[in-house]
């Protein structure tokens, strides 16, 4: 299958290693990638979605129409982008007036939006399309013997009827099954479903509280599991947890969080 990759901004700009991984693995697993030339910000919730419908949905429409023109579904890795695109698409798909307005706005691109393109998260592709079985057959380097824990990105869970793909958003299992397919053991911990706290204004407006919030999660992982790694499927979670660990280590002058 072929999918239109929507990279967003953080992945290519700050963590191209993740992009590298996507580009390296997906075709191997039978998912060909087409790039979305000229895509713009998803748009991030803190931007146009917080200002007005027009600018929000026009940006969504801009992006969606790129893939739609190619006749491809969109694959997203960044949780925020995924959620924003799906919510934007959801608004447009269920509201003819808004869709018409967006088509008016993007008319200048010469593209037209019918909302045929679906927005899919990379973890859903791996889970539903590729499947754990295929992954475990394809892996070259097994994670056998290693313990991992899962960080479920909220943006891929809630609200379930818009962004969800898990059977139960309250008991998600895709990432666990995928990780196990890589040969690792997945440990559970109390705060497994807790948000990382990295998105939005929280970490900026209340940095100390946000750090503490993430710390409780990290501490739970350290205390309750034998984790060698944290599995994330959202670039925000990844960057934020990495940053926080760094920050905490600096603050405590130790090497506790790695």
């Amino acid at each position, binding site marked *: 299958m072929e999918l239109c990759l929507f990279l967003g901004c953080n992945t290519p700009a700050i963590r191209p290693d993740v992009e590298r991984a996507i580009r390296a693995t997906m075709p191997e697993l039978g998912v060909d990638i087409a790039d979305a030339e000229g895509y713009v910000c998803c748009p991030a919730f803190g931007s146009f979605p917080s200002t007005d419908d027009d600018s929000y949905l026009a940006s969504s429409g801009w992006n969606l129409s790129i893939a739609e023109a190619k006749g491809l579904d969109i694959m997203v890795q960044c949780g925020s982008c995924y959620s924003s695109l799906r919510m934007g698409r959801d608004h447009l798909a269920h509201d003819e007036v808004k869709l018409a307005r967006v088509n008016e706005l993007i008319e200048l691109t010469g593209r037209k939006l019918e909302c045929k393109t679906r927005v899919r998260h990379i973890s859903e592709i791996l889970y539903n399309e590729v499947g754990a079985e295929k992954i475990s057959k394809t892996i070259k380097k097994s994670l056998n013997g290693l313990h991992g824990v899962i960080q479920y990105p909220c943006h891929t869970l809630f609200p379930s009827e818009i962004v969800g793909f898990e059977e*139960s958003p*309250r008991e998600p299992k895709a990432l666990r099954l995928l990780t196990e397919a890589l040969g690792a053991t997945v440990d559970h*911990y*109390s705060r497994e479903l*807790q948000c990382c706290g990295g998105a939005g204004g929280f970490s900026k407006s209340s940095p100390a509280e946000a750090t503490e919030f993430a710390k409780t999660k990290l501490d739970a992982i350290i*205390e309750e599991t034998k984790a060698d790694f944290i599995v994330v499927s959202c670039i925000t979670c990844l960057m934020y947890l990495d940053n926080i660990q760094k920050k905490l280590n600096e603050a405590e002058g130790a090497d506790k969080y790695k």
Partner: protein
Amino acid sequence: MAEKKPTGTVLVAGAGVSGIKAAIELAEIGYKVLLTDSSPQIGGILAKLDNQFPTDHCGMCRMLPMVGREYASQYCMRKGLYHENIDILPFTELKSVEGDAGNYTIELLKKARYIDTDKCNGLGECIKVCPVEVADEFNHGLTRRKAVYKPVPHSTPQMLLIDMDTCTRCNACVDVCPTHVINLEAEDELLTRQVHAIILASGVKLYNLKEFEDAKSWAVSPDVVSSLAFERIISGSGTFDGEIKRPSDGKSAKKIAWVQCMGSRNRRQKRDYCSSICCMFALKEAVLAKEKGGDDVETTIFYMDMRTFGKDFYRYYEKAVDEHGVKLIRCRVQGVMLNPDKSLSMRYYDSETQKFFVSDYDMVVLSTGQIPYETHKKLADMLHLEVNPLGLLPTETYDKVKLVKPGVFLCGSLMGLTDLSEAISSGIAAAGQVSRYLSSIDVSILEEEAIAEPTAKDRDEPLISVVLCKCSEKVKESSVDFSALGTGLKKLNSVGEVNIIDMVCSDEGKKTVLELLGKSKCNRLLIGACHPFMYRKSLKNLAKKAGFAASLFEIIDLSSIVHKGFFESEKKDHTREAYSEIRSIIENLKLKPALHVEILPINPVALVVGGGIAGMHAAFCLAQRGVEVHLVEKTDKLGGYAGTRIEHTIDGLTPVYMAKDLTIKILEHKNITLHKNSEVVGSQGSLGAFETKIRDLSKEENFYLRHGAAIIATGGHEGETTEYEYGNSDQILTQAELKDGLATGEIDVSDAETIVMIQCVGSREKQGREYCSRICCVGAIANALTIKEKNPEARIFILYRDVMTYGFTEQYYTKARLAGIVFVSYSLDNKPKVELTDGKPVIKFIEPVLNSEIQLSPDYLILSTGVDPEASNRDVGKAFGLPVNEDGFFVEADSKWRPVEFLKVGLYVAGVAHSPMTLKDAILQAEAAAQKTYAYLSGRKIHTAHTISRVHDAICVRCQRCVDICPYGARSYDEVLDRIIVDGATCQACGMCGVACQNNAAEIMGFSDKQIMAVIDAKLSKAPMFATAE
């Protein structure tokens, strides 16, 4: 001769409490009842509950018949139910209903149990060998069971079955079964029956933690349980023998949280209704947890509105909080987190302190609600009906129990989520509807059994025939030597003969017994067999056929003697044990007098006190069935409060119109005599023969009415208040005044900017009406919506303590919010403050969400002042000798099991005289009270039980201790006759009079001291089995 009419036969589908009650009521008046239940046992969820609110007790046995008690089982209902006129079919599902009104053909699917329970001895050898183990449904998976199992572990007799879904067909059970009653090839059976009427009582599905997505935020640990599962945990017969331990590791649970509205009040899950009972359920569980677990148990309930709306519920709530220290937190919580130490963390926001808290609990109990729609859809399809817009079965406008399809009725939770009291009332009411319906079609009641008077032979010196079934000899552990036993018994004085038969329960066995007894000279009979519960009816018939008086016949449970309850290690002499047990029964039997029953003289006239809608409806229900009714009304107008004041209700009822309609029916009915301007001043007598003194207020003279029974329906009215400056401003009104004003146009709200309503004025507080009036929240919403219709721009604030929109009335609360009506809660210690400024009301209150004070100058301040009982209740109560509670409402016989009865048989209560209730509930109670009355006035012979208390006048000193101690008021002292009188209908033979009476002038026939002391002698006798031989 005209062809014999068929016996009226009724299907009651569903054997929860409401179905059982309906079945008993119909059986009592002589109809044949088929009582089915889709589950393997009867009792519904009540089988799981040891304690039910609001009394924290059981007492389920109190729903058994009072007067016809000897036709029904006289033991704990957990053992099951037996009634001569009821066929019970457990594990049987109603599959289809075809046919016309009054003549329905039903198909019943009798599911295979794979075990012939009639022959199974219930000892469970099969359970021991069964290799399959699965989670036990009864204990909500907290325990394990085998593939062959007892569906209710504590039921007796044991009704085993095999769960074919998990059975491996290894045949181990078949091989081990001593009675050869297991057939793994058994198949479901499809039964076809003709019935004249149908009562649907299947209840509704319960929210299942495994099934629904929203429960998954909670289902993180086995220590998060549903409220029913918790019931199993605290039950004496439950998972931990009543100790409160958390299921995960058996550690005792000291900190327990309840989470309300699990699955209910949830628009997102398409369940925007309230399950009604969960608040009380949680309070009860929290109280029980404290009582059973000790003072160090901490209980917290997370709730939104504490819906304690029923009779005495508010006092229960107060007690739970004030005396037991149950903590209440108003916060709906998202979910729970499982900590590594297995404790459960919940984070909540406390509006009072404006802070977040995280609390750890040992256990979390989810107050799971009910799921009505699926069941309703299925039943509607079966009946070829459409569900109504709410998704429920379509009922007649005023009748909660009457379906739009003739001859089909419903009761219990199918009506919409009922508590016990209402479930029972609805069961009686449904039976009442059926009996009204059947009396309109061409069916008869079962022929009354001729009452056998004791014969001369019965009065002869006792000579006992003993029949023993030796089938239990075959059981492995048994070491009873039946021939030695027979020889021993034969030597006893008064034993005429001993016959030992194999399989008395088989047809052949019965034939043999009958032949033997035909030749017998004995006048008393003792049959020893296994499982007398099951065979009681057939053995009783056998004894009757053989010519033995019912009271001179005893059955003894041989299997229990042979097998039960001895330490395995101690090899007892079972023959000796059996001898001793049987001997004690013989000693009793030989001293037992031949008992007789008395036919009660019944005056088939009913008196109804109160001409409100409940009273009129009850009168009409009775008159329609041919009962002569006297309706006594204090005022010169029929209709009562609702029927004269309330034009419309929010659910589309028109009480005033209805009252007018009923008035015409009452006036036109030949069976009803109306006495207006009259009140009851005194009454005496008992069931069948009351004489009541009535005062005609207009003529100022007294007259007497003789009647067989009476219904008290004195009603109530809007409460009064002086709080919140009421009476000092014409802008301050009660809800009723507002309603009237809006209807007449005297109150113009078209320009009103702000209207404030205060709920619970003078209600639900210690110094006021210490109860919830039930109707005010919906009433306020109705008025508010009317205002909104007239003036959508009006700002309406409803200040409430708990919004009591229980059940499906939750929709009105939702509707009100959607209309922009703002609800603001207040607490008792922070009531709104009202002042008058220039004669206009100014109200100040704390808005608890934002925690800030709000001041408003409303155009109108509307007070919801609740419902007051009629002041005359106390006088009426005094006249009939009926109790009235501290609030002024009548006290029924039992708040759960006998909601419309008084302890004294023959007197009933309906409507607001009982407690504040909605119109539909009052009509339901009126129907139920009429049914209870009809049962005795229908013309059937009513007689006392055999076993009944009597007075030996010659030695009675008239000290009246028996009168004081009788719990039913069945005894009274007649000054004129200078005698103690026993009301034979009310007496339940509890024997308390017998103990209070020191020289046995009061005695329970068949339970004399002489008998019991003889039994004590026999039980402790050291006499050898072969008194003369050894």
